């Protein structure tokens, strides 16, 4: 199957896993090469993005990235840009070779997503908390035009501490935006440590329910469950859906998993080699841990 085709691409479980593994390798490789960036949250969000772009969800045309009839994806947690770039390159929006330029002064791949510069990027993000409002605006436009396309948005679990998220959550419910599906990359960590310790968001599902959303909880590394929740969301009428995806920050690279210090730090060449080895062997996917489980120490280093 040609992954660069227009429309929806629907891979089988094996190919989905293989694509996710490739995306993870791109993530660590491009961040390693750039010498800075955010591996932890890119790896935790990778499966969600792969499911959306390769699991028969996102209807897009790589040759016409601004095609008005496309589905839209807003990566509200913009620091996970390397994951989005890898997915977009794999999907054919630009050459995979471009990924090597990540964060270089002469590249179109900015440290955080730039919708003006990068084909396939539907929203400029990087300042946390803004993406859900943007997605609400897109979804309102879709409703106004009675358009068939849908809007997807990926949020961080630290990110939902931002008040603007709750303004947008309220508005999405008020305007009955059932063409909007959000994913909470619930990896239990932010920069300064465990979300629970820094500024607890729990009970997070109850919060979204009280704000009028349909809530589904899934394992955020289980493609099947992600796609199942996505299909369920498409059937819900009169309400937006929040998919609370329990994930592991740094997922796929053993020494990065569940460690806040890997939020925004590039691997050394040795670490990169080790990570690539692990990711090469992980094509079929490994067992997932819950997002709330453990956490390393506070991340001292800043790739910010």
């Amino acid at each position, binding site marked *: 199957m040609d992954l660069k085709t227009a429309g929806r691409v629907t891979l089988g479980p094996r190919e989905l896993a293989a694509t996710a593994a490739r995306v993870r390798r791109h993530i660590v490789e491009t961040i390693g090469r750039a010498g800075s960036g955010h591996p932890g949250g890119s790896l935790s969000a990778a499966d969600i993005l792969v499911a959306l772009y390769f699991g028969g969800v996102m209807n897009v045309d790589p040759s016409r990235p601004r095609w008005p009839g496309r589905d839209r994806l807003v990566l509200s947690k913009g620091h996970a840009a390397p994951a989005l770039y890898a997915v977009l390159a794999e999907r054919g929006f630009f050459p995979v070779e471009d990924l090597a330029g990540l964060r270089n002064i002469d590249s179109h791949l900015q440290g955080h997503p730039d*919708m003006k510069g990068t084909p396939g990027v539907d*929203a400029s993000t990087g300042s946390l908390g803004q993406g859900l*409002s943007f997605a609400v605006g*897109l979804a309102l*436009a*879709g409703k106004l035009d009675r358009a068939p396309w849908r809007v997807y948005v990926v949020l961080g679990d630290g990110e939902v501490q931002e008040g603007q998220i709750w303004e947008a959550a309220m508005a999405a419910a008020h305007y009955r935006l059932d063409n909007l599906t959000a994913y909470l990359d619930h990896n239990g960590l932010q920069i300064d440590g465990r979300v629970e310790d820094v500024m607890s968001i729990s009970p997070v599902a109850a919060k979204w329910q009280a704000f009028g959303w349909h809530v589904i909880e899934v394992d955020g590394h289980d493609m099947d469950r992600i796609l199942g929740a996505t299909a369920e969301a498409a059937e819900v009428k009169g309400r937006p859906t929040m998919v609370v995806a329990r994930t592991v920050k740094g997922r796929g690279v053993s020494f990065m998993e569940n460690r806040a210090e890997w939020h925004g730090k590039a691997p050394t060449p040795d670490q990169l080699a080790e990570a690539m080895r692990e990711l090469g062997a992980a094509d079929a996917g490994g067992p997932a841990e819950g997002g709330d489980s453990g956490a390393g120490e506070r991340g001292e280093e800043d790739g910010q």
Partner: protein
Amino acid sequence: MSTTRGGSGDGSRPRPEGMTRVQTAAQAEAVATREAYGRALVEVGRRRPEVVVLDADLSGSTKTALFAREFPDRFFNMGIAEANLIGVAAGLAAAGKIPFASTFAVFAPGRVYDQLRVSVAYADLGVKVAATHAGLSVGEDGATHQALEDIALTRVLPNMTVIVPADASETRAAVHAAADHPGPVYLRLGRAPVPVIYPEDHSFTIGRWDVLKEGRDLTLIACGLMVDVCLQAAVALAGEGVLAGVVNASTLKPLDTSTLLEVARRTGAIVTAEEHSVIGGLGSAVTEFLAGEHPVPVVRVGVGDRFGRSGTPAELLAAYGLTPDDVRRAAAKALALKSRGPS
């Protein structure tokens, strides 16, 4: 109510000589620019079906309620949530709409600067922020509601166009121009009625200043309700033998550098006047440019680095130094600097 007569109470205001382009017939009328905005919104709504309007629980005050009544499906109230107001507008723009987002000027840009920066200006999306209740002429609500820094905040944003119309006619034209401009626009509007100085069909081009009166000795450059104040000051100055030009600098960004350079060269001294802090606004834009191209004296009339307070618009404009007399005094200072020459 007239807030711009410096308390003279005299309805028949003389116009400076040499000023041909401003309708004298319209002098008596006073209309708030927010009112003109509300009416013009309905016009652009009819003309361009992509126009949508958003508000944050102030649609009666910002006059977007006029649009909401005619196009209820294209009007979205976001409630008291200004950050979301701007973010949603950005998303609408990204999907091909032409969103006008309104609230008070203290809240947009003040409450939403980062949203305006990233979701709108960095993304270069055609969101039109039309903020009302700018400046001291808000009156009794006091400091928290009197935006004196919004020009500074929007002017520093790349890709942003900043427009401060002088009257109702210019507002109408500016709303149409904003709708047709592809990028982000900030439109600064007032609560209080201000004299209508242009004919109803006045045309407006983004980035082009309007020389209302040619000067010889110095030039008064103003925006918003201070344009009329400067027209009055010019009359007073003429009585003292000083020929002051008057420029309506309604586009604050991009700056009309050719007009600015021309009047600076011709008259050699400038007074700027704005219902805004003397920091960061029109005066700042003018001095930044001239100091690096053609340094001449520029004396700024505006609010002197302090918060507003409660009072009537007229009381406040007087108390904070925004009357024709204040402009006249600033002109005297500019002329003194000019005649002293470089040291």
